[in-house]
């Protein structure tokens, strides 16, 4: 990769982060300024992917016009300081613990991307395949979707790769890895910052380190698959829903939910599992309707407002795409009654649940011990926020289970080729939910 290519790639990344930062800073309170920054690359990727899909050719015109508006917006807000859970407030030993691990991971990323520039099998066969269609096939790219391996898959990841190529002017195979890497780091930051904000910097650091120390998570970040970006959007939405519920006294709570809705919508534009996530989140947010009707409806309205644009794009894509989904088969519902299928799925869940991260040294016992010895916050666990998050993850997992149950593909092959990735998608969110069970750090609460 030459210097000018790296420069163009950085420019493409910089523009998308600027879009994302404008979006997050207009919807999140200034107290969460570091979280705004951590969520910005993902939100920006969503904005840019929608622009590419909706405008295609005049992409640069639209992006630079929007950039002008953004610069004006940022100029007006230039006095916003990085307050709240400030990095400089973190104890130095915690930062000293995290930075070397991140550096080691970054080094491995560089080596992996250099040696596997096209990513692993699904990376090139699905996601880069579609990216090449968007880049090479001109306005007729839709005509080629029936020849793709999963032509019905949403386009956030391929759009971002094709966008990078549009910036550089030619195909740089490594460009497909950028999104995964950036969003893997952002997931680590979002997990750490959210827990630091709600429970304490120590817990935030330890759980962020647990995510860094998940080898399979790091491997998929450079494989050019869509699972790490999807996991980021799940985590972002779940983190913002948690903050919404736990910071009831603060103003602008509904705007936090709108951003959660946007990130959930981006999940839907990343993979079909994201659509399941949107419906699960809406259902979970709607559950307290019997107890707090008006409040619940307002929450749902804010979440839906954020998800409206992504959902509109998903609907347009699905309606204009002739390719049908080949994994979900609702016609074969008699499979639901087949006990051997249930037994097989459960046995595979048992097998994969503690090994999906391909850990050399499993962190589960220390994690459990940490939660127990920090103490479980009974008030938080019984609270609406935590229960909503659990409900979302339960519904998403139930959806995955149902897809396995009814899959037209041979069950064993389908499970073995996808279960570890499904678990990796929800792993950052599960770590957050686990961390939110703990009692907050008293010193931080007092400060």
């Amino acid at each position, binding site marked *: 990769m030459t210097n000018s290519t790296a420069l163009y790639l950085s420019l493409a990344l910089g523009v998308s982060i600027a879009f994302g930062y404008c979006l997050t800073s207009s919807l999140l309170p200034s107290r969460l300024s570091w979280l705004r920054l951590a969520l910005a690359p993902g939100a920006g990727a969503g904005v840019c992917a929608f622009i590419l899909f909706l405008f295609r050719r005049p992409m640069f015109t639209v992006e630079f016009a929007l950039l002008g508006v953004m610069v004006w917006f940022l100029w007006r807000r230039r006095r916003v300081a990085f307050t709240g859970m400030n990095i400089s407030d973190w104890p130095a030993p915690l930062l000293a613990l995290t930075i070397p691990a991140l550096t080691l991971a970054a080094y491995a990323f560089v080596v992996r991307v250099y040696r596997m520039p096209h990513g692993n099998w699904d990376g*090139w066969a699905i996601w880069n395949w579609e990216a090449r269609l968007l880049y*090479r096939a001109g306005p007729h790219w839709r005509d080629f979707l029936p020849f793709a391996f999963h032509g019905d898959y949403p386009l956030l990841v391929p759009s971002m790769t094709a966008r990078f190529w549009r910036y550089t002017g030619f195909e740089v195979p490594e460009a497909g890895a950028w999104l995964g890497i950036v969003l893997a780091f952002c997931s680590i930051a979002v997990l750490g910052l959210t827990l630091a904000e709600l429970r304490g910097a120590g817990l935030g650091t330890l759980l962020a380190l*647990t995510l860094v120390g998940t080898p399979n998570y790091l491997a998929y970040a450079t494989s050019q698959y869509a699972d790490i970006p999807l996991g980021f959007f799940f985590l972002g939405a779940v983190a913002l829903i948690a903050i919404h519920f736990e910071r009831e006294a603060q103003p602008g709570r509904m705007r936090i939910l709108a951003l959660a809705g946007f990130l959930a919508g981006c999940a839907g534009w990343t993979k079909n599992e994201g659509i399941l996530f949107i419906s699960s989140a809406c259902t979970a947010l709607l559950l307290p309707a019997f107890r707090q009707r008006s409040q619940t409806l307002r929450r749902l309205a804010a979440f839906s407002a954020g998800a409206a644009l992504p959902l509109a794009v998903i609907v347009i894509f699905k309606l204009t795409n002739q390719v049908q989904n080949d994994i979900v088969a609702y016609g074969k519902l008699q499979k639901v009654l087949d006990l051997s299928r249930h037994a097989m799925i459960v046995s595979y869940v048992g097998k994969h649940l503690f090994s999906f991260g391909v850990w050399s*040294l499993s*962190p589960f016992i*220390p994690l459990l011990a940490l939660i127990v010895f920090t103490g479980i916050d009974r008030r938080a666990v019984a609270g609406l926020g935590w229960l909503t998050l659990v409900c979302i993850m339960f519904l998403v997992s139930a959806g995955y289970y149902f897809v396995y149950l009814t899959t037209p593909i041979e069950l064993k092959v389908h499970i073995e080729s996808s279960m570890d990735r499904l678990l990796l998608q929800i792993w950052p969110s599960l770590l957050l939910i686990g961390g939110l069970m703990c009692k907050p750090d008293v010193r931080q609460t007092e400060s």
Partner: protein
Amino acid sequence: MLRLERVFASLHTTCLLFDQVWFDRVRRLAKLKQFLRFTAGAAIVVCAYWNVVAFNQATESLAPRDGDEIVMREKRLAPVRQILLFNGYLSGEIAFITNRDFDRLPPLPEDDKRWSQSQYAMIPWVLVRNKRDTPFLLVDFWDGPPHQNLEALTKLYDGDGLVLFQVKKLP
């Protein structure tokens, strides 16, 4: 009266002692909990570093870039793409043939793999199988010389086990 005072005094002392013991116990328990929490945290840090280092070691053992199958496939197909563009065939169908097609046998897994990798490299051309009435024919002889004589066709490229034939003239 004096006896009652003594009873109260001893009760008071007992209470103080109990309080002290209880306080010590609670304090010790809190300290123990703090110690265990610290140990769990330290174990998480050790696990994280152990796993990241193991991941880095696994990364070092990856094949070099030139050994990557897709990189190799892209290099092999680059001249084919050039020739197709030179011939004014910008997109459309190309028949993809292996020796199994000549022998009328089902494709081997390696044939499937090579077809999918070649298709990825050749986008936006569509590599079709079980079809030969396309303007061009791409033959992948990865497992030895062709099992059929194709001399009647116009050969446009031959190299590295790949042969590109023109079947019919473009309009």
